[in-house]
């Protein structure tokens, strides 16, 4: 049985200008000890989806799904009190901005021991030794003296390590990392990614990495889910995706990378991600797709073996019409 199973997750937000569907039908299955990447750009709903799972969305949101099951338990309909026992203990999450994710008013030691005391009971101070051990595991030198440091005294990379230490303190079965390295320098990014993989291996943790960086996906994940405008467009293994993407968006995204440019100009994708007001009829990617046909523009595609496309790339079913590109926005 899979560790985490999400089926048809839908998240709506109430805004001043009407309802906004941020996540439109995401399916995600994560097995024990697996590394899955969730890839998408802004507006893809990647963070919102995981925050919905953790119950961390604001009051203006409505979360619906066919089911959300973690370790055999129904997370969707669970009362908040029950959910709080799981979040932070069995499922943990680290966030993008390490400098602001830690509470600036409390020392590092306080924050780590607080997590432990909250979930395992007992006096906070009794966990000091465990905190030192955790700081050592995440590679922070002079761990004992660091217990009394405040977040503003640490660099971005160190803060992220502390964050990781806090989040693995309770031996979670699943760790969600939301853009864990985006705000960090390149050499530190490499260190943190390596740390995450090392911890994942040694603890048998499942790891979900949310990112917009395809290169990070290539170097860390086993499976990848590609999101576009709140919808799931492709779900494959990393090797398969990078060798031969099946959804036009995945292909376009890979081709837009500077390292895949053939000549002076990059292969940019024209247009922008549809916002709340300008959702196209039919396939959401059709205005920007190189292969779009009239059918694509009229009718929303259904999942075709996990690919949300009328004409997945490389499939036998041939297009009968020539694709006509619209003027880019």
């Amino acid at each position, binding site marked *: 049985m899979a560790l985490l199973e999400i089926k048809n997750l839908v998240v709506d937000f109430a805004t001043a200008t009407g309802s906004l569907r941020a996540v439109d039908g995401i399916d995600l299955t994560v097995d024990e000890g697996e590394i899955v990447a969730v890839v998408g*750009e802004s507006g893809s709903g990647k963070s919102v989806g995981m925050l919905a799972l953790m119950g961390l969305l604001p009051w203006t949101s409505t979360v619906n799904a066919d089911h959300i099951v973690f370790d055999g338990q129904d997370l969707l309909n669970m009362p908040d009190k029950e959910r709080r026992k799981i979040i932070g203990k069995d499922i943990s999450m680290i966030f993008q901005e390490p400098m602001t994710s830690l509470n600036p008013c409390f020392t590092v030691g306080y924050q780590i021991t607080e997590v432990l005391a909250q979930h395992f009971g007992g006096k906070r101070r009794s966990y000091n030794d465990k905190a030192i051990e955790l700081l050592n595991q995440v590679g922070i030198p002079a761990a004992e003296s660091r217990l009394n440091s405040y977040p503003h005294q640490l660099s971005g990379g160190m803060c992220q390590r502390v964050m990781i230490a806090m989040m693995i303190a309770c031996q979670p079965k699943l760790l969600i990392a939301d853009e864990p390295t985006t705000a960090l*320098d*390149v050499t530190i990014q490499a*260190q943190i990614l390596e740390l995450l993989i090392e911890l994942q291996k040694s603890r048998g943790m499942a790891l979900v990495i949310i990112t*917009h960086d395809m290169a990070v996906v290539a170097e860390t994940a086993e499976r990848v889910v590609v999101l576009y405008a709140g919808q799931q467009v492709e779900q494959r293994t990393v090797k398969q995706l990078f060798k031969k993407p099946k959804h036009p968006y995945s292909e376009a*995204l890979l081709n837009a*990378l500077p390292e895949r440019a053939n000549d002076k*100009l990059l292969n*940019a994708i*024209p247009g922008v991600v549809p916002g709340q007001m300008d959702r196209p009829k039919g396939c959401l990617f059709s205005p920007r797709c190189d292969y779009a046909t009239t059918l694509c523009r009229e009718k929303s595609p259904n999942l075709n073996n996990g690919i949300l496309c009328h004409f997945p790339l490389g499939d036998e079913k041939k297009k009968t019409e020539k694709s006509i590109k619209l003027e880019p926005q």
Partner: protein
Amino acid sequence: MPEPLIKARNLHKYYGIKDGLLQASKNLKALSGVSFDLYEGQTLAVVGESGCGKSTLARLLTSIENPTSGHLSVDGIDMAKSHDKATSKKLRQTVQMVFQDPFGSLNPRQKVGDIIQEPLLINTVLSSLERREKALEIMRLVGLKDEYFHRYPHMFSGGQRQRIAIARALILKPKVVVLDEPVSALDVSIQAQVINLLIELQKELGLAYVFISHDLSVVRHIADEILVMYLGKPVEHGPSEVIFNNPKHPYTQALLSATPSTNISIKRQRIKLIGELPSPVNPPTGCAFNPRCQHAHKSCKISEPIMETYGESQAACLALDEGRI
């Protein structure tokens, strides 16, 4: 050989910071000994991580601040001397800047049209109609629709805001544009659009770019020359292809190695850097990189290396100098 548009020789920028009321002020060495030439139509990429001094360099080039020592001249004008109004205006019309954060670099209370026109309003005596015409012209050039003129920045996406910022930078028809991480905050697909726009504009308007970035894949695509910096000091400098194919300085090698790539078919030997980036307030003695360098030697902790030429590029490394690598 024509004169370079920007000539920088041995630039230093120090800030005095007080650690407490009674302490003597310490020197924060933001830049130590940066030299380069920038020619018309060329792109110089300045690459480095936090604390390397690239933002300080940007501020010096746009005359927000003056160098503590060293020579910096822009289009023949010496930046170290104080300038009269006319010279300041000329400088502003020569060097302009695009900032990193598309969400913070546009005044949320000003309409797009006003933002783009502001440099004209300050520096020229054009009528309001003429200013509007010029603004619309530039907007069309960077791919913005006319009707965006009356809108506020928060109504636009990151990519569009960056186009607005580029339009603002170009309206005075500068010769040099300093781009401080212009695409770092953008999505991949939008990054590609904006980079293409920058390349096209460079060709069309004959612009020179100082492109500051930490993203080496982007830099490789757009730069003619690369200057790698670490803690305010230049560590390697040379033509783009030479630096990428044959990096000489250990830091450059580590930086290239740390940059993730989607080319998973190539197995890479990762150079793992240990330790954190040092703080500019408390730099290591000797070579700034020595605590993290795998080739560090006794001498590296004592003497600071200077830039020497090795083939087509220059690097500042004692191990190279002593023939250890």
